[in-house]
Structures are given as C-alpha cells and as structure tokens.
C-alpha cells in the first residue's frame, strides 16, 4: 500500500510540477499573473476527452494537435486581451494587477463556456487502464505513461530554456527586461512567446491528468491554486524548485489520502505551504529579493 501511495503521489506531483512550470514562465517572463491558467488545463482535459470518446484519437496522439493548438490559442489571448494592458502599464507592478483582473474575468468566460457544453458532472474515459506491477504495487498503466510523458516533456522544456538561444533570451527578459532590449531582444515578442509556451504546458498537463483522474468544469481553479502554491513554494522563477515543490505536494497529498482521510488533501497542501513560507519566505530555492 505504501509503494502504491508513493507512486501515485509522484505521478500527481509530476503533474503539479509540469503545470507549475508553465505558470512560472508566464509570470516570470510575461509578468502576467494568469488566474485563468487552470481553466486552460481543464479545457485541454475536455478536448482530450472528446478526442478519445467521439473522434477516436487517443490522448497521446491528441497531444500532437493539442500542444500547437493551445500555443496558438494562448498567443491570441495574449495579443487580444493582454497586449492592451501591457501597452498602458507604466510598470511591471501595474501590469500584474491589471492582468490579475483581466484573467479573473477570462476564468469565468472559459468556465461558463465549458459549463454550457459539458454541464457540472465529473468526466473520465478509459485509456490504458490495465494494471501494471511495479515495485510490488499495482498501478494503472495510464499513470505510468502520464508520468513518463511528464518527465520527458518537462525535461525538454527545461533544456529549451537553458540550452537554446530563444530560451536564454526568455530568461534574460525575466531577469531584466530593459537590458534585454539592449541586446536586441524584442521583449514584446518574447513575452507573447513565453505566455503561449506556458499555455501549451498547461494543456499538456490537462491532457496527461485526464488520462487517470476524473475532472469537471469547475476544477480549473484547483489547478491554478496548486500551480501557484508550487511556484511560490519552490521559489518564483525556479524550475528545479517547482519540480521539488510539486513532488512534495503530490506525495504528501497521496500519503494523507491513503492513510488518514482523502478529505484532508487540500488542508495538508496549505499546511506544507505555510510551513515553507514561515521558514523560508522566498521559497525552497528562491533567493531573497534585494
């Protein structure tokens, strides 16, 4: 039972970390605090559901369509909804406040559309639901596959950010947008690109999660919250921190759900979050801002 709890915790934590990576990119580079982030996770879950049940495309193949589609969708959201805010913001702080309000509105629009189409019920679908034995625990194959994909995509994402010219440019914008302009980086383009890439990460998370969890139209806010907690707990802008924080949360939730009470998972999330903030306010891997 312990190895089962541990494994499903790691799977869940991997999802949190993956989803948080996208949020930290949107916030770190574009300075958009995207409250509709979790909604876009859930949209991807529903698209994967429709692909699987109505079109007959399995979610892994579906990723090939969903990743570019979500990239484009988020690009458009940034251009239409957020570019006017960027243009009028006098500083980054003002942009943060404006973007919180704008994306809060977007949250309800997306959720409303989902509710009209899918109602308030819980959804799930069968995909790779056969049991696999691993380290003495019986695990559904879909969890194993989801974890594998999360690792590969998360690693790829990390390598893009650290090893490519464009990725390094995105990190430069996060560190100092004015200096970034002085080295020929188009900061507006980079912000839009980072927002779209972060949105694509959200979609990947949504698709992978839908393979093994039930989901509903109102669950987006849970993902936004979890992603925020993971980002802050790991240290804003720190990819390794997001990974560790995601895994800690996932495993803790899973252990609590298995051994104590499934109703306490949210509570334990916040207890850990508060403890970390009390001991290290800048997050596990964050540096105090000077």
């Amino acid at each position, binding site marked *: 039972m312990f190895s089962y709890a541990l494994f499903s915790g790691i799977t869940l934590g991997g999802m949190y970390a993956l989803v948080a990576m996208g949020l930290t990119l949107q916030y770190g580079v574009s300075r958009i605090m995207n409250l509709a982030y979790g909604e876009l996770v859930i949209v991807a879950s529903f698209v994967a559901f429709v692909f699987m049940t109505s079109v007959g495309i399995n979610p892994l193949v579906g990723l090939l369509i969903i990743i570019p589609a979500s990239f484009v969708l988020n690009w458009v959201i940034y251009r239409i909804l957020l570019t006017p805010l960027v243009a009028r913001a006098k500083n980054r702080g003002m942009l943060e406040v404006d973007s919180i309000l704008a994306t809060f509105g977007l949250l309800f629009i997306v959720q409303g559309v989902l509710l009209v189409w899918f109602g308030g019920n819980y959804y799930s679908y069968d995909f790779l639901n056969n049991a696999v034995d691993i380290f003495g625990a019986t695990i559904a194959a879909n969890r194993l596959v989801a974890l594998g994909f999360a690792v590969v995509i998360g690693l790829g994402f990390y390598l893009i950010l650290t090893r490519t*010219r464009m990725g*390094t*440019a995105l*990190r*430069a914008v996060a*560190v*100092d947008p*004015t*200096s*970034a*302009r*002085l*080295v*020929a*980086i*188009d*900061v507006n383009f980079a912000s839009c690109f980072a927002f779209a890439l972060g949105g694509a990460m959200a979609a990947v998370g949504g698709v992978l999660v839908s393979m093994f969890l039930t989901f509903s139209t109102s669950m987006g806010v849970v993902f936004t919250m979890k992603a925020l907690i993971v980002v802050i707990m790991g240290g804003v802008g720190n990819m390794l921190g997001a990974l560790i924080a995601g895994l800690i949360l996932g495993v803790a939730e899973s252990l609590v759900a298995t051994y104590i009470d499934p109703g306490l998972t949210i509570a334990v999330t916040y207890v850990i979050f508060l403890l970390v903030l009390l001991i290290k306010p800048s997050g596990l891997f964050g540096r105090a801002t000077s």
Partner: protein
Amino acid sequence: MLDIKNLSVSYGKHAALREVDLTVDRGEIVVMLGANGAGKSSLLKACAGLITPHDGTHIDLSGNELTALSAHKIVETGLALVPEGRGIFGELTVRENLALGAFAKRARAAEKQNLDRVIDLFPKLAERLDQAARTMSGGEQQMVAIGRALMSNPDILLLDEPSLGLSPIMTGELFKALAAIRKTGVGVLLVEQNAHQSLAISDRGYLIENGAITGQDTAKALQSDPAVQKAFLGLGAA
C-alpha cells in the same frame, strides 16, 4: 558614423536635453563630460531607444534614422549601449551574458570570433565563464557588460559612466581596454565624470551643462583648458 542633430528630451516639464548636436566616428573615442544631472545619460538612452526624444530630433547611424526604431532594432543597426549600473543579467552565467550579446542577427555569424576578441580583451573572464554574473566584483561585472555589448558586433559603443564604483587601478585597466577597442575600428562615446583619465584616452570631447553642449574640442586642447576643470567640477550645473 553616429550623427546626432537637434536632440531634445524632457521628463514632464523638465528639459533634460536641449538641441544637442554631436557626432562620433568609427575608430575614435569621444568623451562627454558633465556633472550629475547634466543630461549625459539621457543622451545615451535616447540614442539606444530607451527614451523618446522630441519631434525634430535626428539620430543617424550609417543611414538609419534611430528615432524611428525601437531599442531592439537599434542594436541591429550597429549601436550598443553599456548602461549606467551595467545592466548585466545577474542570475545568468557570464557565458550566457556574452551569448545574449550576440542575440542580434548582425552578430551571429561572427559570434565565435567576437567571443575570442572579448576574452583577449578581458582574459579574467575566461576562467569565470560558468559563474553567475552577480557573484563577481564590480570591475569584472563591468567587463561582462562591455563584453556583452561588443558581442553584438557594434560600429558604435556607448558607455555610461563605466568607471563608477571602480578602483583607480581597475579604471585604468578599463580605459586601456577602451583604447584597444578603438583600434578595432569601433567608435566609442564615453560619458564620464572622471575627466582626467577619460580625456587621456579620448580623441575629442564635449562639455555638457544643464542639457546643452557648452564646448567641444580635441581631447588635448580640453586637457589644457582651464575652463574644463570648472565645467567638470559642475559649477553652474544642478
């Protein structure tokens, strides 16, 4: 050649620069001397596209009207600014900082040669390439900042008080490096308060006071001009 004509800049009602004319040729070092608040930084920022000058201002670099371009496009025309406070990416490594200097399309083909050139100029950076830039000393950070600007393969290099906060020895080394940069054909526009050392390496100089040019001459003539000491000490300036 960088040709600035009729440059005016204001912040709200405060006029920072009034109808300034200034030129910098390739292969020369031009120093601009003036007190704090005289408008030196504004001039450099206007050239780099970080602030918008008044209508009627013309800044020409090899046939490009810089006032019509945004900051990232200006780098592509061959102008690089080392801003006040250096503006390096502290969280990134020295190597990444230098690589970002070559982000401009004009710089990519020659990235390798330019990196060798920068390392030749500042050998200390060679052993620090994988260190986070913020962990280095002020002088080393200034090397990174200048190195990053050179990586963009500029025709004109602008430096905003590079000697600020550096020891006299470090400043000497820095100015020696600028003289070496001039030899490669780059034109250097240097904003400084350190008149003595900067005039020693410069070809020409401008004096700026309250946002207007009050004098210009060869560096030699300025060095022996008693009024320079006065202007440089900031008498009459805010």
